[in-house]
């Protein structure tokens, strides 16, 4: 019994206190911004995290993927509809209607919810489908908007919505 208690206390102290404390310390020293959650600042104020989707509804911004949760305050989750659930088709039609852009057929990621509800990215196809609307709203040329997408996406097949919208706000119109 004495052995069991001593070993339990030792292991708990090591794994539950020393380990996370050391890791936190090293994280703060090496990459404080990443360790704090990759928060994004604009004019001295935190406007979000690069990794976390925020809801965009106005016409002058790129919209993100549909989410099963309230992105402003909710816990993370998917909608957990089965592929065979008839509800899924209805939901897809609904999202398509919400996000429909100049009648173009929308890619899959614009019509179905993500796994976490906080997917910060959209596909390049979905971004392209929104170019015309944003160019009109902001008096920008479509080429200019498309260039921003290409810049932000790099070699990826997807693009970060918050960072792309920040680029939009920063670009002179």
């Amino acid at each position: 019994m004495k052995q069991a208690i001593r070993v339990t206390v030792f292991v708990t102290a090591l794994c539950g206190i020393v380990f996370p404390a050391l890791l936190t310390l090293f994280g703060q020293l090496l990459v404080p911004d990443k360790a704090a959650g990759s928060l994004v600042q604009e004019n001295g104020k935190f406007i979000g995290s690069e990794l976390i989707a925020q809801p965009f509804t106005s016409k002058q911004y790129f919209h993100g993927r549909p989410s099963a949760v309230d992105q402003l305050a909710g816990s993370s989750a998917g909608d957990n509809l089965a592929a065979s659930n008839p509800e899924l088709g209805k939901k897809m039609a609904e999202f398509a209607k919400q996000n429909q852009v100049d009648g173009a057929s929308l890619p899959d990621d614009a019509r179905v919810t993500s796994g976490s509800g906080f997917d910060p990215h959209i596909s390049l196809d979905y971004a392209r489908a929104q170019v015309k609307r944003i160019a009109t709203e902001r008096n920008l040329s479509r080429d200019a908007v498309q260039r921003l997408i290409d810049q932000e996406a790099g070699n990826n097949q997807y693009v970060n919505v918050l960072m792309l919208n920040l680029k939009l706000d920063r670009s002179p119109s």
Partner: protein
Amino acid sequence: MWTQFLLQFWILLVIALGAAVLLGRYIGTVFAPVGIRKTDWIGKLERRLLLLLGVDERKQDQSWVGYSKSLLLVNLLFFVGGYLLLRFQGSLPLNPNGAVNLDWSTALHTTISFMTNTDQQHYSGEALSYLSQTFVLGTMLFVAPTMAFTVCIAVIRGLANQPLGNFYADFVRFILRILIPVSFLFGLLLILLGVPQTFGGTVTVTTLEGAKQLIYRGPIAAFEVIKQLGNNGAGFFGANGAHPFENPNQYVNFIQMFLMLLIPMSLPVAYGKMIGSAKQGRLFLGVMTLLFIMMTFGMAGSLLANPTAHGQELRFGQIGTILYSSITTAAETGAVNAMHDSLHPLAGLIQLGNMMLNVVYGGTGAGFLNVLLYAFVAVFLTGLLIGRTPTFLGKKLETFEVKLMAITLLVPPFLILVGTAVSMYVAPGVGAISNPGYHGLSQVLYEFTSATANNGSGFEGLGDANVYWNVSTSFALFFGRYIPLILMLAIAGSLKAKPAVPQDEFSFKTDTPLFGTVFLGTVVLVGALTFLPVLVLGPIADWLTM
């Protein structure tokens, strides 16, 4: 897409196997019985530390009964402590987000779930304080895999005809030599790659459109790394590895998959080293890998033919989702980077298959114990066919062992099938189902399979956050874990006590391709015969009626 899949798959497999062979040899060396182990300088420090804790390894070899008792005692201490801390987290420190006390059934389920290395979660991670996440559950993420690991090592020692060893020494040594250093190294890497590690609490930001957004943060990297390395699988957040803070990019995704595979793959190598036949270890590793390749190809087939972004995150791509979903169920981790409920029914079939077989690597320690169990069964069946007493590594498997083998083999199907059947019959069981048709049965079946196999992932649409589900799955979690552990120790203890039969040309050879085939056949037949009917009614019917 297939080319890309194959490329990523082979790269991951080769890297993981390479690292696992090195780790396996290391484990085989440092966990050799006290009598024959060479002591290095770390060993000397370790001995001092153990003496301070009151453990003198050289004088305190334990019988299988003593080893089991010590193991259960330590588990009991963690159960009681963990339960109380979760029940009263609201009034304890390190609670910047104001999490409230868990109710009794959630606290009970969570404690059992974490201590059995399952980490099935009926709460959302956002509902816990940092004290609960880091100190309580974070510690359990180290302790739980160690339990099955120590049993596995003791059983291997017994098979090698050596003393079983001392539980406390094995417990401390595994954490000190393997879990902590590897976790620290990869934990740092995760932070560098963008996984947060902070006690700073939730921040409120003003979005570009002017709304207030709450961003939950926390000491995530420390949690994440041991969750994968120890095949725990608990999510810091509700969405688990799909959440961008837990798994921010493809590199982190890759590291997580690597960590899940590392220890389960290394144990057959350690086994080979400890029984003095590397060939036998390679044979098991080979068969497990073959099963893993087949299952993962099945997963790729179902998802590449039906590509979707539903329940998935774009940054991993279809392939990142396929590999992760297969590995997490194969290595019994239970972390998810996509919502398994929303994947194609055949993907669900593969996931269920991985968990039901529970030897496609399997979790830390527990997986390899299952491999040994199936190997005993294969030897026994062969013995029946040719009418001779079966022997394994020169030890006779007789009535006592065969009885225990049969019980160990029957416990998981009993818990899974009876649990599912009862839940399909009672109101709170059926009431939890969220998807119509055959998929509803899959949801219930998945929950009990995941609990029994100590996996912990779920078809998360299931409304399981209530007393019925907390209590019913607690049974599956508890017995699915401890009965096999204790019975395997008993088998090893009994085999060790028997005189070895001299090996001759008529002895059972358990390191040949022929035995590998018999072993594979046993795994597939026993698994398929037990679960085929319910799989037909669940995922297969779901697929055929889509």
